[in-house]
């Protein structure tokens, strides 16, 4: 492996090494940090964020963004909670919440895909709209534990065997995300749109429909995350999802998804998610002030953006050098047999 290959490898997999290093550092500073119980607790904390981050990764890979997810989570939690307290039916409440999220996503998708509005601005507006909607609907008050059905609250502590339901859902979403992105035409289309929208359209890819679907998915999953959170805390708070959009964005960019679209891996997003949650858990272990943690979320986002642009630069320039080598090697080959040609440049 030559130096350019090594650079590309490091640029792509730096987050995995950073994750290991971070765990090592906290484990040394606080010996009881490295334990099965703490690992499970970190995963449990990561679940809802992961449910939002995976669909957001798809959106960013397709060259758009959804900043409304945190507010949509809050709105869905409040709306679902109110339906539950009104009807007493957990299923109806959950369906209502998720339907609201999907509707919010559909609205974003319609404005961005079909009216061609800028996704950053539209979903920033959505952030305010749905956040306000949650407060308006609830009158600013938390729906208390007593008003939520027993069955719903049970979800918060439900386990599949020894594994909490949140972790099971996270694993399912990650697996589904990996499958869709790497193994389906839809996933290939998503990356193609983000890589070169016009080329994708000329290839017959349904650009508008694909992005619309991604927004609906993002909204639906944000709603699910909001409901899961309220089941976990046993109440529906109109601010329950606030800030999740920034956390999810941080996770996605830390995970090596290119902000300009077209590039990204699910494994990277998972590593980004774990890095972020390990960092927060570690700070709790170190008894850092919670206010300091908020500052750190913002700083991590900024670092992630900085890393994103420099990582993409490194990868591009290394590829360019490799490509030049390969081309010249192939031309040195000078009209040799096909077998030799295919070998050229792979060394």
């Amino acid at each position, binding site marked *: 492996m030559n130096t350019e290959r090594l650079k590309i490898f490091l640029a792509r997999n730096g987050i995995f090494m950073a994750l290991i290093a971070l765990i090592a550092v906290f484990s040394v500073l606080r010996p009881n940090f490295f334990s099965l119980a703490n690992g499970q607790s970190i995963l449990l904390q990561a679940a809802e964020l992961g449910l939002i981050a995976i669909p957001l990764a798809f959106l960013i890979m397709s060259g758009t963004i959804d900043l409304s997810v945190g507010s949509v989570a809050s709105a869905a939690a409040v709306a679902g909670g109110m339906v539950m307290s009104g009807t007493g039916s957990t299923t109806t409440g959950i369906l209502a919440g998720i339907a609201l999220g999907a509707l919010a996503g559909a609205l974003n998708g319609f404005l961005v895909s079909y009216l061609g509005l800028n996704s950053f601005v539209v979903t920033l507006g959505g952030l305010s709209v749905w956040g306000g909607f949650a407060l308006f609907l609830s009158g600013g008050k938390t729906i208390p534990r007593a008003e939520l059905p027993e069955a719903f609250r049970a979800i918060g502590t439900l386990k599949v065997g020894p594994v909490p339901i949140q972790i099971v859902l996270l694993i399912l979403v990650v697996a589904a995300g990996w499958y869709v992105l790497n193994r389906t035409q839809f996933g290939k289309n998503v990356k193609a749109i983000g890589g070169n929208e016009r080329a994708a359209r000329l290839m017959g890819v349904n650009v508008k429909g694909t992005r619309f679907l991604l927004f609906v998915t993002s909204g639906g999953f944000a709603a699910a995350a909001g409901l899961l959170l309220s089941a976990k805390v046993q109440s529906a708070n109109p601010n329950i999802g606030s800030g999740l959009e920034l956390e999810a964005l941080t996770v996605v960019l830390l995970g090596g998804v290119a902000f300009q679209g077209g590039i990204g891996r699910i494994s990277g997003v998972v590593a980004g998610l774990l890095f972020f949650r390990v960092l927060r858990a570690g700070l709790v272990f170190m008894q850092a002030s919670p206010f300091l943690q908020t500052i750190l979320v913002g700083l991590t986002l900024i670092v992630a953006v900085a890393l994103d642009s420099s990582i993409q630069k490194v990868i591009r320039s290394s590829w360019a050098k490799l*490509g030049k080598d390969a*081309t010249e090697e192939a031309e040195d080959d000078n009209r040799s047999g096909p077998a030799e040609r295919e070998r050229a440049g792979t060394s």
Partner: protein
Amino acid sequence: MTPPQEPPRLEYESVTVDFGATRALSEISFSVRPGEIVGLLGHNGAGKSTLFNVTSGVIGATSGSFRVDGVNVGGDLSPRQAAELGITIIHQEPALAQNLTVLDNLFLARPAGAGADRKKKARAALEAVGADIPLDMPVDALGLGQRQLVDLARGMLAGEMKVLLLDEPTAALGKAETDALHALIRNFAERGVAVVYVSHRLPDIMEVCTRIVVLRGGELVVDDAAAGFTADRLARALVPELRDAEFIETVPGAEAFRIDTPGGPVTAREGEVVGLFGMAGGEQFALAASLAGVDGAAEYELRGTRVRVASPRQAIKRGVFYVPPDRDTEGLIASETAKDNVMLPWFGATGGRGWWISDQTGAEVYRKARRALDIRGPAGDAEVSQFSGGNRQKHLLARWLYPARPGLLVLAQPTQGVDVGAKLDIVDAARTAARDGATVLVVSSESDEIASMCDRAYCLLGGRIREVGRAGDFNAALLAGLLALAEPVPESA
């Protein structure tokens, strides 16, 4: 007719450039006298751009140096130093700030005087390059030819122009614009500028250059007067084992395509390769794009049935495949692998119907495409941006040739900016597709591109069309056809 030997304006001395372990330029030494126009030729990756980059200060030489007017300037200067030395470079796509005005662009990173003086200088420079452009016009409103002239005028404002480097300046220009540019280049040469001219268009080089330098694999292989060169010999110097340019003859079948244009019908038969020839950026390109449902809808007859195509999806479903004119902005997805770039529209038609795409999915088709088009470079799992220009173009072509059989294949300047070897491979592939039953349209503003691969052609200009049949002087007939359309028509029809 050689003028008395003046000292060289530009003199390269053993210029060598290494990129990592790769030697891009090896001990290049040659010189250019005032008034000489040297054609610099070579494959993609032969080192032409590298030499230009060293000369214009974009990169430094690993070893060696060059002189301007006898003064050794080393091998590693900044772009600003290069400009101050009187070295001007004109690219195929001028590096101008699109949103600024012509005037602002002329003085970007140039010493500017006071308002009135600035305008006077700017007008003089534009006049010298024969450009009649308002100074307050935004650059993005100009055509490519005009932008090049602005770039050239910008070069003149840096001071005395001594060396002029031209990098594929005519690649996207029409005949008239090309002639105007050539006249201008000669004019500069007469005034003592040393000109180095890179182009893939052999006729252009033959027409304007006094000497020819050929690079191959970073080495200088030919340095000779242009007078003794024939296009044939030149092609052989570029590609030592040039294959026969005569293409496979096909017997066309029934009419498979017909569209009514304002100027009359355009038709093509099964197995036929038909050219649509016009000016650079001309209406033939819009017509071609509309056939594929790009940027608008079109109605035409396809194998006897009337169809309306309003989107690329609909076109592809009907077997109408379109290779857009610009491979990098419209065709390929730089961040995707080479294989995926070929297979992307077709995964739904593979084994898993698009629901289980592995690394093996489409690998066989991709291997076949590489063999058929003689694609060189890294393996199929490398990003497509790693391949050279010609090989990227072949990937774009492969997408529409091998995974599915094209019915109507629309190729917009398919051999634009690729080297001679790749050009022959592409012509072969298009002719083979026709022989296998496809109807092929080749859309271009370069007559030799049409002449090298078509059975007949239509010239399109100003809403009028004229058919030109294949004959010995096809190339000339195409140009004549277009010129005839350019003349004003009497008010009768």
